[in-house]
């Protein structure tokens, strides 16, 4: 094999990613080829330089403490009587057998609702909530092309009291989606669109309108055409439903 062919694989070799069967041949070649040996040495020097330079930033003790406190587990209660614990454990186990499935699904739903509400609130609290600032759906929709792995239709607003403020890319369960912000009588409403298959518990969410616990928002969610939609805001339920219906009509067109 010519030297150039070996050199093409030199980085892979030094990264330890060369298939085992090729390593022996490679070792033999590098030992007998001054050019490749010098090149390998040079690249090892560069790797070491990047490794050293790359470990540059150290967090403060105060910051470590803050993060640790924010994730610290709560202290466990101790039981003085073993049989009380055993009885309680047995009871929990029996009840758990009947309810675990429901609880898992329910907590999954609650988690998604609270995640959506978090995204809505965090975005509105931001100094620049949208990355594409436009009231024109023909500007906002193309902006998402290439940024998210699907396309969707936006409703025509001309005859409605809603106005589009803009949009941004967002993430739920580490998958990308579209976040659109609308305005109606000084209330902001967020519309989130994700691929149905990407959202955990999507099937259990169904089509529903609800006010999630502890959240001062109305939320509507449904699946349509392989996409999962969420409409959330502090506007009245009628406005949320109206905007949701406009999206349903646009998706069906």
């Amino acid at each position, binding site marked *: 094999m010519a030297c150039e062919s070996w050199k*093409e694989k030199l980085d892979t070799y030094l990264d330890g990613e060369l298939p085992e069967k090729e390593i022996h041949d490679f070792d033999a070649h590098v030992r007998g080829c001054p050019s490749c040996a010098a090149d390998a040495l*040079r690249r090892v020097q560069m790797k070491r330089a990047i490794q*050293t330079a790359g470990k540059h*930033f150290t967090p403060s003790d105060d910051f470590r403490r803050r993060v640790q406190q924010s*994730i610290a587990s709560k202290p466990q209660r101790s039981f003085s009587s073993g049989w009380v614990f055993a009885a309680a454990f047995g009871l929990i186990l029996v009840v758990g057998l009947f309810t675990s499935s429901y609880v898992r699904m329910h907590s999954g739903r609650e988690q998604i609702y609270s995640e959506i509400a978090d995204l809505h609130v965090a975005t509105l609290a931001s100094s620049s909530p949208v990355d594409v600032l436009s009231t024109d759906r023909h500007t906002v929709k193309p902006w998402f092309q290439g940024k998210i792995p699907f396309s969707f239709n936006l409703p025509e607003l001309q005859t409605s009291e809603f106005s589009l403020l803009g949009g941004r890319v967002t993430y739920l369960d580490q998958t990308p989606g579209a976040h659109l912000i609308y305005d109606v009588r000084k209330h902001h409403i967020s519309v989130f669109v994700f691929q149905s298959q990407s959202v955990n518990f999507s099937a259990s969410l169904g089509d529903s309108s609800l006010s999630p616990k502890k959240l001062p928002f109305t939320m509507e969610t449904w699946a349509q055409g392989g996409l999962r939609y969420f409409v959330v805001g502090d506007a009245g339920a009628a406005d949320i439903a109206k905007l949701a219906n406009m999206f349903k009509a646009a998706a069906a067109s």
Partner: protein
Amino acid sequence: MTSRSFEQLAMPHFERLYNFACWLTHDRQEAEDLVQETYAKALKGFSSFQPGTNFRAWIYKILRNAFLTSRTGLKAAATVPLEPEDEEQVVPAVMETPESILLQRSDWQLVQKAVEQLPVAYREVLLLCEVEEMSYQEISATLGIPMGTVMSRLSRARKTLRDGFATAAAASKGVN
């Protein structure tokens, strides 16, 4: 899985995550916000983590996604050069000495500056490989890109650095 087991799994990565966040954001305050957000999201989504799978790749992926949705991240992502990646031929290194001399002189500031100036798509893959010592497969899982793209981005990142070192060495020689 409890918050205690989360803490046991997550805290050993704290310093490295912070370092990686600093390299992504170029700003210590932003990096702190990013790490804090990462830990909050990871704890919240810990029930979705599959025990036995790669926790490091999982938490780095959360950090990177949080970065991509931040103002700095969106701005950085928008500046990624749109060049073909998987089709690229790996360019063999040319036998040159100035960059070797530069590296031998341990000019870490120059190396840091060169890495900082890389587009974020190249910088992240290079740091995950060299500093975090992740395998190509782990990087692929963390960044959500194919292995071929990992290799081509690494190759481009290294070539950009080599070219930068050669230029800097030539300039340094000219000054001296």
